[in-house]
């Protein structure tokens, strides 16, 4: 149901103008088409494209950049160092056009970066970000977000949701932060005309055939698959590249390394992937996950069991990126089906 009080509309032809305005006041991150469609920092509304199903890279970069300075250091005259922390997020940011699946992934990432030890870099950015989502009405064949209880047309995990209902967008704020932003840019928004609910429902027809798998018992069904040869052929096929993990909106693994210059340097973190052999390789030369099979297995166990055991959620939002971009077409939905149907154990 459209909440009349928190909802507005914006005419399509005013969107660019709004984005221009947002870009002035915020770090505006939005989908841009280059060789591919990816979220990027934009300076003006005209750079933004909304003609895409999902971006290649999820917007996790905006909270957990691929490379991020943890602190800098400088050498002093003796043998010491002076350290200073990496930059805080210097301005409030707006992510425009985030899909409900990617928005959900942030909730999962929060579980990692919050907790006993708080990752100030991630949390700081998270706090300073307003998410403006874009409802999905034309999902891709590879999409299966309903599997994880995600409604691709809902604004559950965003501050504001835009729904394309033809000549205008329905604009719904679902948080205080969202409502505040709507107020601030009230000039661009108009009152509802009344047919919005109906128009939106009509658009939802496109979601009818979406893949929805039953994952209610997947964590339990994974456990016996630890041994056995189900993962052999997947490991065989896997090339050990980082596409699936780097494109995954829920994958959060990173490495930490130093840069050393004459005058000082910095310690940075950067994305890392459990698909890489070096990920678990110890200095002694031992590697607890010595082959592709072990690494593939870790990835799926992490998503469908380990993460669940720790946090009570599955670490997948059904965005389909890993399936869509895997050069050898390893199909996560097939694996879910194999596991949940019991086929995986019987091979």
């Amino acid at each position, binding site marked *: 149901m459209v909440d009349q009080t928190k909802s507005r509309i914006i005419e399509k032809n005013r969107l660019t103008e709004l984005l221009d305005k947002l870009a002035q006041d915020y770090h505006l991150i939005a989908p841009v088409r280059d060789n591919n469609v990816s979220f990027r920092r934009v300076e003006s509304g005209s750079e933004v494209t909304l003609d895409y199903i999902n971006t290649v890279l999820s917007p996790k970069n905006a909270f957990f950049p691929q490379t991020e300075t943890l602190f800098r250091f400088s050498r002093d005259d003796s043998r010491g160092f002076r350290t200073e922390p990496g930059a805080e997020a210097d301005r409030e940011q707006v992510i425009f056009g985030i899909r409900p699946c990617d928005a959900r992934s942030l909730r999962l990432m929060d579980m990692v970066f919050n907790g006993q030890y708080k990752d100030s870099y991630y949390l700081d950015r998270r706090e300073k970000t307003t998410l403006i989502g874009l409802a999905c009405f034309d999902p891709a064949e590879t999409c299966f977000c309903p599997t994880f209880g995600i409604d691709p047309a809902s604004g559950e995990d965003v501050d504001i949701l835009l729904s394309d209902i033809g000549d205008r967008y329905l604009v719904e704020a679902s948080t205080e932060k969202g409502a505040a932003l709507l107020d601030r840019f009230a000039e661009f928004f108009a009152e509802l005309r009344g047919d919005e609910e109906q128009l939106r429902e009509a658009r939802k027809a496109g979601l009818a055939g979406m893949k929805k798998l039953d994952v209610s018992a997947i964590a339990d069904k994974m456990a016996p698959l630890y041994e056995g040869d189900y993962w052999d052929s997947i490991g065989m096929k896997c*090339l050990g590249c980082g596409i699936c993990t780097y494109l995954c909106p829920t994958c959060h693994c990173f490495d930490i390394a130093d840069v050393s210059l004459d005058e000082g340097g910095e310690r940075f973190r950067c994305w890392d992937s459990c698909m890489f052999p070096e990920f678990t390789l110890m200095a002694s030369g031992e590697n607890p996950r010595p082959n592709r099979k072990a690494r593939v297995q870790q990835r799926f166990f992490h998503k469908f069991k380990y993460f669940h055991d720790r946090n009570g959620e599955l670490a997948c939002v059904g965005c389909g990126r890993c399936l869509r971009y895997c050069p050898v*077409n390893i199909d996560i939905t097939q694996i879910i089906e194999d596991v949940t149907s019991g086929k995986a154990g019987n091979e």
Partner: protein
Amino acid sequence: MKATSEEVQTSVKKLFEDGSIGHFIGYETGSDSLHVTPCFLKSGQAASRLVWNPLCANNLSKYLLDFKNVEGKVGIMVKGCDSRSVVELLKENQIDRDKVFIVGVPCSGIVDREKLLEVLGISPGEVVAVEDDGDAFLVTIKGGTQRVDKEKVLRGECLVCKYPTPLVYDVLLGEAVSSLPWVGDDYSLIKEQEALSSEEKALHWNREFSQCIRCYACRNICPVCTCTECIFDKKAPRWISKANDVSENLVYHLVRAFHVAGRCIDCGECERACPMNIPLRSLNKKVEKDLLELFDYTAGIDVEQQPPLTTYQLGDLDEFL
């Protein structure tokens, strides 16, 4: 005649039966009708899974490295381009010819999925099958069949393919294809790039390299990237920082282009694998073009041919400025 999936299945089955092979690497239908995926067989029973169609893009030859220590011969399906990487693997002693049984299939072009969808204006779920039909593909979509000109929807490497028929094989299924009618100047795109100013080139590549996420898919899928430990994974010396910035990405891509110089056979797998759509073939093609112009060398043709950068002629070009 082009070989059919059935022919492949029958012949692989027979190879298992007569003991010629103990393993087979081929293709099977993937997650949808526009995808195939590598398929590994240990017996002839499952041979009916095998397919051969214009979607079989993967160069399977790299998987041969995983079968070095198995009992019996490994059968593998290769297209023209794939056979050339087999030649390179043989050249560098990475595989043993006596342990490999090569099933060659002449190929008249592989579909570029994205191009096809764009040309037809459809989504992948609507496609039922894609078949080769001479200079066009027959695309069966829900509710009919469409004929699409190959030139509009072929993969980039297929548009300049000079070796559609495998150069090395134990058995060839289907009729050899000697040349492909659409292949013209292999290097027209490279020449366009070469003609740009340094500033334009730098701008262009800066933008491209800044997109790279260093997932290493281009390296890992590359059939001639066979190092036991890649220099980019080494810690001492550290050639490249894990930090993802343009200059590190530059080092990665240039060194990679150089490392496959004289070995790259333009199977296009790097570019196909790249999720960010970086035009990686452009770098490799550039080197390929120079090796041809400077040293009259083409990779992957002859096992006995000495790699161009390990040899010289007194009369090689000496002008540098």
